[in-house]
C-alpha cells in the first residue's frame, strides 16, 4: 500500500486538499490498485466513525448570548482601563494621553452619543429653567438678560467632555470614582444600598450615561480587586454559581439598558437599568465581603 499512495496523500485526497493533477493521479491509481482501494475504503469507514464519535461533542450548544454579554462587560472594563494604560506606557507623554482620553470620550459609540445627548438635554433644561425663573422674578424687563443667559449653554454643553478626562487620566485603576458628574457616591466594598437608592431618587431622569459610567467604574474596580485576590480561588461549584449569577445580572443589564436607550425620556426605564447595575454592584460587594474574612483566616 505504501508503495502506491502514501496514507497522508490518500487522506489529503479524501479531504480535498490535493492539487488538481495530484487528484487525477490518485484517482486513476485507485481504479487500478486493489490494495489502495482497500485502504481507501478503510479510510472512509474510519473517518465516518471519527466524525460520528465527535459529533455529539460538537453538537453541544454554544452559549452565544452569555458569551457575548460576558465579553461586552469585559470590554467595557477594558475600555475604562485603557487611558490608564496609555499613561503608564508613556507613548507620547501626557499631552498625547490627554488627547487620547479626550478622543475616547468623544468617539461616537451609540452609548456615548445617548449619554451626551442626555447630558446636553439636562443642561438645556436647566438653562431654560433658570431663564424662566429669572424672567418671572424681576418682571417684564426680559430681553437683555435672556439673551445673556441663553448664550451660556453652548460652552456649558461642551465642557463636560473636557472636565471628565482629568480625573480619569490621573486616577490609578483602583480608585473609586469620586467625581462622577452627579451620581457620585460609590462604595468600594461596603454595600450601601440605602445611600445608593437615595441617590437614585435625586438623579435627574433623562441622563443615562453619567450615572452608568460611574457604575461601570465601580464594577470594574470591584471586579479587578476580586480578581487580584484570586490567589485563593473559590470553590469550583461556588465559582460557577457566582459566574452564572453574574451572567444573569449582565443579561438583565443588557436588557434594561436597551430599554433605557430606546426610551431616553422614560424615568422608569432608567431606574430599571440602574437597579440592574446596583444588583451587580451588590453581588460583587457580597462576594468581596464574603471572601475578605476567608483570606484573614
Amino acid at each position: 500500500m505504501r508503495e502506491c499512495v502514501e496514507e497522508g496523500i490518500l487522506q489529503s485526497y479524501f479531504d480535498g486538499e490535493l492539487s488538481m493533477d495530484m487528484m487525477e493521479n490518485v484517482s486513476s491509481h485507485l481504479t487500478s490498485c486493489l490494495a489502495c482501494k482497500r485502504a481507501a475504503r478503510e479510510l472512509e469507514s474510519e473517518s465516518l466513525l471519527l466524525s460520528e464519535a465527535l459529533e455529539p461533542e460538537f453538537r453541544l450548544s454554544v452559549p452565544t448570548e452569555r458569551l457575548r454579554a460576558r465579553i461586552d462587560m469585559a470590554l467595557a472594563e477594558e475600555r475604562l482601563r485603557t487611558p490608564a494604560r496609555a499613561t503608564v506606557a508613556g507613548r507620547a507623554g501626557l499631552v498625547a494621553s490627554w488627547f487620547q482620553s479626550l478622543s475616547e470620550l468623544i468617539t461616537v459609540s451609540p452609548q456615548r452619543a445617548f449619554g451626551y445627548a442626555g447630558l446636553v438635554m439636562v443642561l438645556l433644561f436647566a438653562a431654560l429653567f433658570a431663564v424662566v425663573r429669572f424672567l418671572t422674578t424681576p418682571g417684564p424687563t426680559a430681553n437683555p438678560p435672556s439673551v445673556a443667559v441663553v448664550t451660556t449653554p453652548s460652552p456649558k454643553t461642551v465642557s463636560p467632555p473636557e472636565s471628565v478626562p482629568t480625573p480619569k487620566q490621573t486616577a490609578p485603576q483602583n480608585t473609586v470614582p469620586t467625581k462622577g458628574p452627579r451620581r457620585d457616591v460609590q462604595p468600594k466594598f461596603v454595600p450601601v444600598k440605602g445611600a445608593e437608592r437615595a441617590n437614585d431618587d435625586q438623579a435627574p431622569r433623562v441622563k443615562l450615561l453619567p450615572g452608568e459610567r460611574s457604575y461601570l467604574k465601580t464594577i470594574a474596580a470591584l471586579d479587578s480587586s476580586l480578581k487580584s485576590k484570586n490567589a485563593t480561588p473559590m470553590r469550583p461549584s461556588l465559582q460557577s454559581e457566582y459566574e452564572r449569577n453574574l451572567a444573569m445580572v449582565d443579561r438583565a443589564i443588557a436588557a434594561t439598558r436597551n430599554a433605557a436607550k430606546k426610551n431616553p425620556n422614560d424615568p422608569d426605564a432608567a431606574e430599571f437599568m440602574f437597579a440592574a447595575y446596583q444588583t451587580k454592584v451588590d453581588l460583587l460587594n457580597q462576594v468581596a465581603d464574603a471572601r475578605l474574612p476567608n483570606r484573614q483566616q
Partner: protein
Amino acid sequence: MSGQARALIDSMPDQIATEASSLSFDEAFTLHHRAVFRTARAVLRDAALAEDVTQEVFLRLYRNQDSTPGDELLRPWLLRVTLNVARNTIRGQNRSMARDTVYSQETSGEGWQAPEEDYERRLEIEEARRALDKIKEPMRSCLLLKQQGLSYREIAETLSLKETNVGSLVARGRKQFARVYGKIGGVR
C-alpha cells in the same frame, strides 16, 4: 471646541484605525466564537472554564487588534491562542468533572433534552473524549480542528506545523482513534 477636538482626532490615524477595526471585532466574534468555545470545551471538558477561555481569547483579540492577522488567518490565530490559554488553564488548576456536571444540569434546555437521551449522549461524549485522550499531540489537535472544518492550511497555521505534514498526521490520528474507540466500546 468640539470641532477642534474632532480635528485633533482626525489627525490621529491610529485612533481611527482602532475605531475601524472594532467593527471587525464584532464580526470576528460572530464568526469564530463557536469554534473558540468548542475547541476550549473539547480540551478542558468543562463548559464554564471554556467560557472563561473564550472571554480571555476575545479580550486578547481586542487588545491586539492591530497586530492580529486578518481574514483567513484570523481563525488559526484565535484557535492557537485558545489552545494556549486552555492548556495554561489545565496547568493552573485541576479539572473538575463535578463542576461540569453541575453546570450542564443548571443550563439544561440549552444543550440537553430528555433525561435518557441526555445520559446516552453524555456517555457518547465521554467515550469519544477518552479515546481522544489516548491520541498524542499534535495528531489529537489535528483531528479536533479538522472535525470543525478547518483546512490543512489553517490547521498548520494553528499548530505551527508544515502544511504538507497535516495529511499524514490526520491519517495517523484517525487510525489510532478508530483502534482506541473500538476498544473503549464505541459502536459502529
